[in-house]
């Protein structure tokens, strides 16, 4: 072992792996926070793809919801009394903003559902359109609105545990990592468990799996494929809405054009990596959270020794690019072994012309 550590590259690599583990443990809270939009986006994708609809428009849905949450909350702040923030920093304007974001997510999803289920347009094109329109329209309006520099309605805050809890060994760390979050992150943590259980144990889950694998078989036993797909895509819109709101009323409190920065696409990779299950997808999102948090962690507390010298010499752009690189590597590594729902991406035609 000693010998190995003296080989410069391998030694450095091993140190780096060790550092990664330490950083991940130390920054557990940040990782979960940064994984939230990816995880929620992946859950949105889960709702779509498990019922047979490919959704590459999650990015656009999130961006729209981010804009709406921010703008509606700010508008609400001008007319509604903010009052004293409740637990988790909840104020009336923020709740209005959140509700608007959810509605926006559902509305954009309705567009996707209509195009891909009813019109049977190409699903990838439908998603692309959503991305382009969302980027354009939020950029356009964001620019116009920011000229009047409205005051932000602020953002949700994290659940704070009683003083001293952090000090308890292990449990303190666990509570800090998992519980000390804003309402949107907390809802992801709850949502993933609920969805996982429902998928395998509920009637909805069984029907969703059947519709995503073999819609005609589902139809022949009396299941309304179109209705189930619509319902799931719209429910997925709620999750994309939550993910969008995270950017502007939980993690931050302002909107910039294109601020989702590809998180919606990384979510798709997380879904594939997680083999189309809720727990798997959110687990994969955490991996991307690590990649996302690494740059911050190194800036705040660089490791000592050779590794520290090396890491601080690496251009910061590499760390910014890391989540995207990790996405590519993960996709290239797992896609062949991860099997998608068989009917994923195929529009369903009720009346078959087979004779």
């Amino acid at each position, binding site marked *: 072992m000693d010998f190995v550590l003296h080989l410069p590259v391998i030694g450095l690599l091993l140190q780096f792996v060790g550092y990664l583990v330490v950083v991940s443990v130390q920054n557990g809270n940040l990782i979960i926070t940064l994984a939230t939009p990816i995880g929620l986006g992946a859950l949105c994708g889960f709702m779509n793809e498990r019922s047979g609809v490919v959704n590459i428009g999650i990015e656009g849905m999130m961006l729209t919801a981010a804009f709406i949450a921010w703008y509606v909350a700010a508008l609400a702040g001008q007319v509604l009394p903010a009052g004293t923030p409740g637990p988790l920093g909840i104020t009336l304007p923020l709740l209005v903003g959140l509700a608007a974001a959810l509605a926006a997510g559902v509305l954009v999803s309705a567009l996707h559902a209509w195009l891909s289920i009813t019109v049977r347009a190409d699903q990838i094109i439908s998603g692309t359109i959503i991305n382009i329109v969302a980027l354009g329209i939020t950029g356009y309006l964001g620019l116009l609105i920011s000229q009047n520099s409205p005051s932000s309605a602020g953002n949700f805050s994290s659940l704070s545990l009683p003083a001293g809890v952090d000090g308890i060994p292990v449990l303190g760390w666990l509570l800090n990592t998992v519980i000390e979050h804003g309402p949107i992150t907390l809802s992801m943590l709850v949502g993933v468990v609920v969805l996982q259980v429902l998928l395998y144990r509920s009637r909805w889950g069984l*029907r969703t799996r059947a519709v995503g694998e073999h819609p005609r078989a589902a139809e*022949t036993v*009396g299941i309304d494929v179109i209705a189930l797909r619509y319902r799931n895509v719209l429910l997925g819109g709620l999750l994309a809405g939550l993910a969008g709101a995270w950017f502007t009323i939980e993690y931050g409190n302002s909107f910039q054009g294109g601020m989702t920065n590809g998180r919606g696409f990384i979510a798709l990779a997380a879904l594939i990596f997680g083999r189309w299950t809720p727990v798997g997808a959110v687990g994969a999102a955490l991996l991307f959270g690590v990649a996302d948090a690494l740059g911050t962690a190194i800036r705040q507390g660089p490791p000592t020794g050779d590794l520290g010298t090396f890491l601080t010499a690496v251009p910061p752009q590499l760390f910014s690019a890391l989540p995207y690189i990790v996405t590519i590597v993960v996709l290239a590594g797992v896609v062949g072994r991860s099997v998608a729902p068989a009917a994923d991406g195929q529009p369903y035609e009720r*009346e*078959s012309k*087979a*004779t």
Partner: protein
Amino acid sequence: MEPPDPPTITPASTPALEMRGITKRYPGVLANDAIDLEVRPGEIHALLGENGAGKSTLMNILYGLAVPDDGQILLDGTPVEMRSPAEAIAYGISMVHQHFMLVPVLSVADNILLGDEPVAGLFFLDRRRAHARLRELAGGFGWDLDLDAPVGSLSVGWQQRVEILKALYRNASILVLDEPTAVLTPQETQEIFAVLRRLTGEGYSVIFISHKLYEVLEIADRITVIRRGRVVGQRVPAETDEDDLAELMVGREVQLTVDRGESHPGAPALVVESLRAADDRGHEVVHEVSFEVRAGEIFGIAGVAGNGQDELVEALAGLRAPTAGRVRLEGRDVTGHSARDLHQRNVAYVPADRHRFGLVLSYPLTDNLVLTDYYHAPFARGIVRDDGAITRHAATAIERFDVRTPSTTAIAATLSGGNQQKVVVARELDRELRLLILDQPTRGLDVGSIEFIHRQAIAKRDAGTAILLVSAELDEILELSDRIGVMYRGRLVAIVDGPSASREEIGLLMATGGREVTPTGSASPVA
């Protein structure tokens, strides 16, 4: 087996099901033209017609999967409307589709429950209660089913049984079976027949769809024959025979089997030695297969679908790399050679799935007819295509192989299945061949096209081509093959003489791999 009693129902009794004047148009096709059908309680009513006659359309209408343009459906004398399968199920109609409507990744139990799930509390499936009921249901037939196994892991015979359980679980009173025997061995067919007779005894009415004359004669109480969307006759088995039904079904006097004449096999053209191949997931599904095909003979491979035939054929056609073993073509080792290389060595391959492999459906016939030869003279000079030569070639091929098409530039997707297959056959057979691989060459075709393609195959055989014929349709194998190999679970379990082979003998080998016949079960086949 005792023949069923002739129908003795008085005209006064109400039919269980009546379909009156059902008409259904699809763009360019009148699929159902004022069809009348009457099914009495407790009878097995056969719907006979060739592929494309409109049987499935009629049943899709009955099952709420298609909406008729005109006509009426009556159940026990009451007019009803079937707007969706859910309504059909509620009226007590169940259907076993030709292509099974099972979700492969779901368990047997979940497949049966789907759509009618027992729920405990608000959301959760009550699997325990369901399993108890399913075990009882399956036990009634003496079927020992693993309810938790994924359906995809079952053989087609067992999947068929799951489909029947699905119907019974829903308390159906009318059971529709669309070509239920197409994928079964003769023995399994007999077993299904026994089940059907038992069910009619318990009061079920059964609609049995088929294009196989002898089956219909054996199982049906009454037979309705459909041709080109119209009812052309009704028969009782006791008062008809195969020739009569065939003429009714096709509309002209037909010879159901082509005269295959005498074959004169020469030297071995294809020699396969201990070939192994894996499926897309990397599981070995072809184990140590050895056989040879001689020039001027037709070697048939029989087997229930999914016993490794697809992978074997792909390995021989250059589309799948074998994992071990050797393939020799006229003495030369061609193991693992590419599809193009084999094509250049005068090997032709008519694939089973013409929509996926054999044709580019969005291409005109001109391009489809040069799909495997587009890159060389006279169709191309260097990289430049010669559209003139391609068009001239299409005109000749269409003429010689009697492809019915409005023009040489018609899009392949617009042609009928029979004509599409003729395009593939024209492209692959219109040259001198050493080896011809025919994989399910007539699946889903009308009688006329089947006849045409069988004649072409025999002509090639007589010209000295070695022909490998793979088909799940046992009748086709028996009709054409000089020798027959049977595949069972990835092994070639026996090779028998074609002309003297019996359906029962081959069927047993297909169903069991011949373990009853050769107790070792692994007797290596001798070429």
